[in-house]
């Protein structure tokens, strides 16, 4: 208990040193930390040279709200820590064979997801996320368009994606999903025959790994039936900025930040994907391989 508080205090102090604001000023300021992390800039646009102090939105009202939220979060974290792993009893955590991480039953479940498409880079695809029939599933639909934006630099276009939002704990520290007790990702989906890619983002150890993603494919059959898709975590391969890497590593299952789906099969036209839930399971049938990709040192 004491260790937890100390740990929190340590991280708390460290994370604000990084951002260059003192502990007391931190909560008063918004817009500073939540700057977009992406370094992508559309070709032809000028770099955003607004100084940092101009983007700061200082107000005591913010500070009060923020402190209230953060204290609530830290209280929840302490209580959860006393209860057991992830706020559940230890026995429950030990015997669980399956876990539903995301399900889609109301608008609040959808708010935890971000939908994006190549409209960000100037493309013409569209993607929307709504609740399905009878509020029982999420419906991701839209149109894929592979027209390349005419900016002279971009050479390929045409993707739509959906990603869960990053989780933040008390005092803006990262929250991870710990899936290390499971070995399979279990999805219940209904697609329209298009192949999708499942992306998992883990916390980067070094900042130059911030574009690393673990990917694998998902092939919904299409048709009127729901289907269950199981993907073992070992199958996920490492890619960075859309390129498969030569050196493959096992995913760190205790440091998972987000999960997402991407469509980019170069077929122009409407698409749709319905997702019932996204869960995890301990698949006893999948015990064979530890890692399917070669790990020996290759000829440099």
């Amino acid at each position, binding site marked *: 208990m004491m260790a937890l508080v100390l740990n929190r205090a340590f991280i708390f102090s460290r994370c604000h040193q990084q951002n260059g604001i003192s502990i007391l000023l931190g909560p008063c300021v918004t817009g500073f930390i939540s700057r977009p992390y992406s370094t992508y800039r559309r070709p032809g646009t000028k770099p955003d040279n607004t100084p940092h102090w101009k983007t700061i939105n200082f107000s005591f009202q913010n500070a009060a709200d923020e402190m209230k939220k953060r204290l609530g979060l830290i209280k929840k974290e302490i209580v959860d820590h006393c209860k057991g792993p992830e706020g559940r009893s230890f026995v429950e955590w030990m*015997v669980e*064979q*399956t*876990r*539903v991480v995301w*399900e889609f*039953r109301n608008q609040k479940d959808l708010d935890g997801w971000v939908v994006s498409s190549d409209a960000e880079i100037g493309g013409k695809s569209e993607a929307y996320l709504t609740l*399905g*029939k*009878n509020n*029982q*599933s999420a419906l991701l639909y839209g149109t894929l368009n592979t027209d390349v934006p005419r900016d002279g630099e971009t050479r*390929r276009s045409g993707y739509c994606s959906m990603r869960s939002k990053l989780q933040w704990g008390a005092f803006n520290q990262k929250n991870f999903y710990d899936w290390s007790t499971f070995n399979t990702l*279990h999805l*219940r989906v209904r697609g*329209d*025959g*298009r*192949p999708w890619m499942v992306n998992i983002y883990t916390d980067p150890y070094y900042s130059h790994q911030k574009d690393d993603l673990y990917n694998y*494919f998902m*092939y919904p*059959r*299409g*048709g*009127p*039936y*729901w*289907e269950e898709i199981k993907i073992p975590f070992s199958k996920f391969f490492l890619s960075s900025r859309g390129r*498969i890497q*030569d050196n493959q590593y096992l995913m760190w299952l205790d440091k998972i930040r987000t999960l997402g789906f991407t469509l980019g*099969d*170069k*077929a122009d*036209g*409407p*698409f*749709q994907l319905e997702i*019932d*839930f996204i*869960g995890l*399971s301990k698949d006893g049938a999948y015990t064979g391989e530890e890692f*399917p*990709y*070669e790990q020996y040192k290759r000829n440099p």
Partner: protein
Amino acid sequence: LSVHLSQQTLADELMPPRLSQSEVELNSNSNSSEDARTKATFQKVVEVFCKRDIRRRGHVEFIYMALKKMPEFGVEKDIAVYNKILDVFPKEIFVARNFIQRMFNHYPRQQECAIELLEQMESYGIMPNNQTKFLLLQIFGIKSHPIRKYQRMMYWFPKFKHVNPYPVPDPLPQDPVDLARHALQRIAANFDARVVVYQLPMTELTEAGKESDYPYIVGIQSPEQRSSLAQHNPDRPVFVEGPFRLWLKKTCVYYYVLRAELLPPELRVGKAIDPERNFYYPMVLDLDLGRDRLDDMEFDTDEVEEGPVFAMCMAGAGDQVTLAKWILGLQETNPILSQTPVVFRLSPGPRELQPITGSDDDGEEEVFENQHWKHEL
């Protein structure tokens, strides 16, 4: 030899730059009507370029242009053509000879160009073959960037070649009936399901001189679906819904579904045995033997509840008359359908080019008795 070479250099100096010539050639070939845009023409252009100059001046620009023009000539999925283009590179000149050259990017423009070629192959899903490898080795030597790219492709392509559990044939069948059969078997996900072709596509000339089209109708039904339809209460209507999309690679096809609404919960209970029927021993035993808490593999979530699907079909036209013919065909194997009202809930599909006369609203519902339709047809 030296004389010959000097003559060549002279000729090079005298001739106008190659780039513009080759470009003009590609463009003229694609523009002129007698030279069709075929593989033969494309290969001829590449040969002409190779023969013109022993030094292959302007070959990088030529290759970029050729790569860009490949889809126009319909050769973007032909490994032989890619090898032919790769053959344009002069051999053995760009091979690094010592470690310093190997360390620094030796002939970067040429290496980038070859990588671009391999990347185009990658994006079209073309696997390099041995000839590609020999050409690359001859041109750039081992441990060059294009060879690295080749090695990566050869590592990952076979890994993901058969990763799709429901593979789509390549190329897809041209005949719409075959395509419909394949698509229906794919979405039915049942090996027992039987495909029935209710009507083959044909055009008939009536006596009045009017042409009447008969679109194809292909349906699928599994034995389980047939038995569940037989148990369906004929007082409750069944619905024909559609069109729904199905993508097979880059082709989009549409299918229709015959389904019922979900029963209200009070009717869904079915045959529960009254516990007071027998006081001496239980009529139902649900012991769940051999199950531990560690064996509980169920997900703690409510399944999406939807009405049962009784049959699926694909048709050449999405209008109600065509689909009514499908229902008529289904009646032969499912006699209960002749007593059940069928409701058509069709959204204006992309296949219906002519606007619906009368009402334009989405999903118009029209109830009709099947016997009545049988009479008419």
